């Protein structure tokens, strides 16, 4: 028998052994897969929640708003030119300019339906104004403060208000989720690893004698260990896919409920790379568990 032919037979046999191991203790492997599925479901679920929280926070709170007021009765042509200047300033995302008439209109729209102000009397007393949105990054507020000074220095500008509460909320939520994410991610990775290791150990515990015996009758080390590595990896891939599928189904159901009147919250699916990373992590941890458990 040529050496090559035997190698192929051995490889086939090692892989067949992996499947036989699963088939030989289907309950145990199912339980292991289920445990992993649950771990992945929980890990993925928390990750999804945090990622979406972060996303929603960024959208709603990652900006500071400046309100810039000109003197009532200022020249609107001059004011419009200054709006362009502000729009070009670094860090300014968006600028909405409002003439006194537009201010009145927006004020009226916040009033109860059917009510109207005595228009000319009010309009002439309102100042032209602009709402500038400024993106806040990190916890450093000095760029925002600088911008405030620059806006105040514009000719014709009477007052500039920064919405400080909003700025603080954004920063508080950001630092909070940053603080919570680290420990949570750590705890979850540990949980997945532990479950995978426990499951692999359990699968192996009953077969230690077989592993030992195979060595005693002349099996090469790779032939002894490969089935453990493969079956552990297969079990955990199946388990993590199950968990992530359940998570995806939950997300679909929730997304349907959340993205509709009146909440309009968008629940983004987990990115494909993250899904793949979780599956790969679970497979690697389990394969490692198999490799270690089958060691001498």
């Amino acid at each position, binding site marked *: *028998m040529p050496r090559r032919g035997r*190698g192929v*037979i*051995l490889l086939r*046999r090692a892989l067949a052994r992996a499947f036989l191991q699963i088939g030989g203790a289907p309950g145990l492997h199912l339980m292991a897969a289920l445990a992993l599925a649950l771990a992945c479901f929980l890990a993925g679920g928390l990750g999804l929640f945090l990622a979406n929280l972060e996303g929603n926070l960024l959208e709603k709170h990652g900006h500071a708003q400046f309100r810039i007021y000109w003197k009532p009765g200022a020249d609107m042509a001059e004011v419009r030119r200054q709006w362009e200047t502000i729009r070009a300033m670094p860090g300014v995302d968006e600028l909405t300019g409002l003439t006194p008439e537009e201010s009145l209109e927006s004020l009226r729209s916040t009033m109860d339906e059917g009510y109207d102000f005595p228009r000319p009397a009010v309009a002439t007393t309102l100042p032209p104004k602009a709402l500038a949105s400024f993106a806040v990054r990190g916890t450093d507020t000095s760029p925002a403060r600088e911008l405030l000074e620059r806006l105040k220095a514009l000719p014709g500008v009477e007052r500039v208000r920064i919405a400080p509460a909003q700025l603080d909320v954004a920063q508080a939520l950001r630092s909070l989720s940053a603080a919570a994410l680290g420990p949570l991610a750590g705890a979850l990775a540990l949980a997945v690893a532990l479950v995978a290791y426990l499951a692999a150990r359990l699968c192996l515990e009953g077969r230690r004698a077989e592993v030992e*015996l*195979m*060595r005693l*009758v002349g099996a090469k*080390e790779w032939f002894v260990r490969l089935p453990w590595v493969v079956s552990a990896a297969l079990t955990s891939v199946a388990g993590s896919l199950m968990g992530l599928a359940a998570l995806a189904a939950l997300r679909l159901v929730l997304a349907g409920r959340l993205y509709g009147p009146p909440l309009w919250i968008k629940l983004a699916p987990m990115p494909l790379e993250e899904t793949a990373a979780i599956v790969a992590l679970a497979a690697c941890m389990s394969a490692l568990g198999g490799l270690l458990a089958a060691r001498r």
Partner: protein
Amino acid sequence: MISAVHLSHAFGGHKALQAVSFRVHKGEFAFLTGRSGAGKTTLLRILHGQLPLQAGKARIAGYDLASLRRGRLPLLRRDVAVVFQDFKILPDRTVAENVRLPLEVCGLPDGQIARRVDSVLAVLELERAANLPCAVLSGGEQQRVAIARAMVAGPKVILADEPTGNLDRDMALRLMDVFKQFHAHGVTILMATHNHDIVAATPQARVLNLEAGFLGQAGGACPAGGAA
């Protein structure tokens, strides 16, 4: 084929083997005797690479145990088969599965495996039990499974550790005939035993007598000792 020079082995403070030297030539049949705890199993385990070589030299089937790399240990074990004193069979597997294991791990094709397993089970009168899980076998049947597994791959050397302890005298003598057939085909056999009947029934074999870790001479065999 097997040689040991000043082989010693200690477990903690307990000296199980003390400067044992002997030589078993290719195609020879040798008994290893000695009272319980004399070190017979220890000696066989060293020769099979299950225990590290602590002191002295040993060679078996062309492998020098002192310089053997880990990766070559499987090759040694394909040439040197052991009948374990405690059988070491897998209780939840069938007899056939237990016996085919050495053939499986060396990559023999399935057809050849089946043929060889069938014939060795027939020789050891185990056909009836071929598909029973080993857990349900009687003590003597389990012992024969252990022997069948050692013989199935056609090794160059068989180290048999008390292979007849659970067999009645008739069965033991029939089994000795099987060992003798292997011997006649050129296989080297080293058999640890307490059974005086089978030693007496095998005049062609030499007897190595271990007493308290020392190797005495018995059975009128050639003098032990000397380098391999």
